[in-house]
């Protein structure tokens, strides 16, 4: 019962925020912030709200399609990445002294190409990491076999 009451209170507290939410490129923003900077591809807004409330706001906003969002906790910030085809790519919620700063970034092929190149390189990295011990083993075993063959031939 207690849980239900807490949930209802939380919903009540969050619902006006959700209802009045603004957005940038379709990414929701809590109302009432001060725009710090804005370009075509990025918008940074400062809020005098607790960090936990900002995260709760986004969890509530994205709950219907949560599997298409990744919430990456970075200690003093949470990086929210979006995986469906929305015009925006990420929302970064950063703790500041007074409240939070929310930065929304536009989706771009630069990000996709960059991350793919990095991951292709990572496949090499993984197999190179396996290659090194195997190559060492191969050299050692090759020498041992050559020595054995030489000893056999001498005998």
């Amino acid at each position, binding site marked *: 019962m207690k849980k239900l009451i807490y949930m209802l209170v939380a919903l009540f507290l969050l619902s006006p925020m959700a209802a009045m939410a603004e957005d940038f490129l379709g990414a929701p923003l809590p109302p009432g912030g001060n725009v710090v900077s804005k370009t075509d591809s990025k918008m940074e807004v400062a809020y005098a709200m607790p960090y936990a409330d900002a995260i709760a706001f986004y969890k509530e906003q994205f709950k219907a399609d949560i599997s*298409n969002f*990744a919430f990456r906790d970075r200690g003093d910030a949470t990086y929210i990445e979006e*995986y469906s*085809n929305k015009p925006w790519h990420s929302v970064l919620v950063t703790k500041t002294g007074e409240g939070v700063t929310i930065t929304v970034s536009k989706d771009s092929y630069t990000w*996709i190409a960059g991350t793919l190149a990095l991951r292709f390189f990572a496949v*090499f990295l993984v*197999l190179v990491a396996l290659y090194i011990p195997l190559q060492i*083993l191969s050299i050692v*075993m090759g020498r041992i*076999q050559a020595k054995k063959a030489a000893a056999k031939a001498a005998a």
Partner: protein
Amino acid sequence: MSAYDVYEMFKGTIDTMGILSISWQMLLMWAIAGFFMYLAIVKNFEPLLLLPIGFGIFIVNFPMVPLMGYTSAGHPELIKFFYHYGLEWEIIPCVIFLGLGALTDFGPLIANPKMLLVGAGAQLGVFVTFTGCVMAGFTLKEAASVGIIGGADGPTTIYLTQKLAPELLGANALAAYSYMAMVPLIQPPIMRAMTTKAERLIKMRQMRAVSQTEKIFYPLVATVVIILLIPAVAPLMGMFMLGNLFKESGVVARLTETSGNALMNIVTIFLGVSVGATMHWSAFLSPKPLFIFSLGMVDFVVCTIGGVATVKLMNLFLKEKINPLIGNAGVSAVPMAARVSHVVGQEYDKKNYLLMHAMGPNLAGVMGSAAAAGLFIAMFGG
């Protein structure tokens, strides 16, 4: 009994039959199923999978069949049961990897570990296709699951698709296995186009003998390295290496035999039928699966190019040159791609035996595609 009662009786009986509910879409799916069963039975293309997949497509496209839904008591129906516990729970691809491990001899890769790089290079198509899919409007998760088709590894494709885009499972699995079966048709023209005659005639030195001790250590070392770097791929790689350890240890012959034969055969039946059964006409007859099929082809081509190009690149730095005809084997598709390398090599020199050399990149391809899948899972959270 009145005429109305008799009419109601007949109507009640006919209503429980499927024949009046059949649609042209179902008939079209029968034709598609028939095509894949034809490929399996007549052309012998990947029959172990294409036959059960084809039958799965066929049987699920009948009206009112109690196969992929839930009973009134809430229990999954027959194929839904296989699908739920086998694929949604991600069990079957891992069990297949256990069996594959028990059947794999890593000797050629241990003897020539440079081939690991070829396996990595051959994943190029996975990433190129990913980009193509995103540009075509697929979500990032869907794009990743389509991209992995080029890795030519059925269980990996199914595992990743089930995690990221289960709605594409049928189309992706079918594309993966169809193109794997067509490796002997797709790859040779690319291999010939990318190599000179002199390169095709390169003879590689006979590989050193690999001791049993090395073969026992290999799955342990590979497990440490791969899982430390990509923990997300632990279910697949862990089972693969466990199966291989069974085999190489030589002390659990019964487990090796079961993993590589009976167990793998059992789950292959469930895998094939369940994957086929996901292809109900309502989900399959749309532009997306057709697009996946066309992109799958591009994927295979680019992966083959990636493998051959990696060997050519390596040759710039190596004293002992590698025959670039083995580069195609980096796409996985074990052992078909390695056989293709050998057959194409023999066209130019009957005394050039490339099969064992090509097994190295072939096995590296399995690990490369699993690594790529693991990176996607890590990226999108699965």
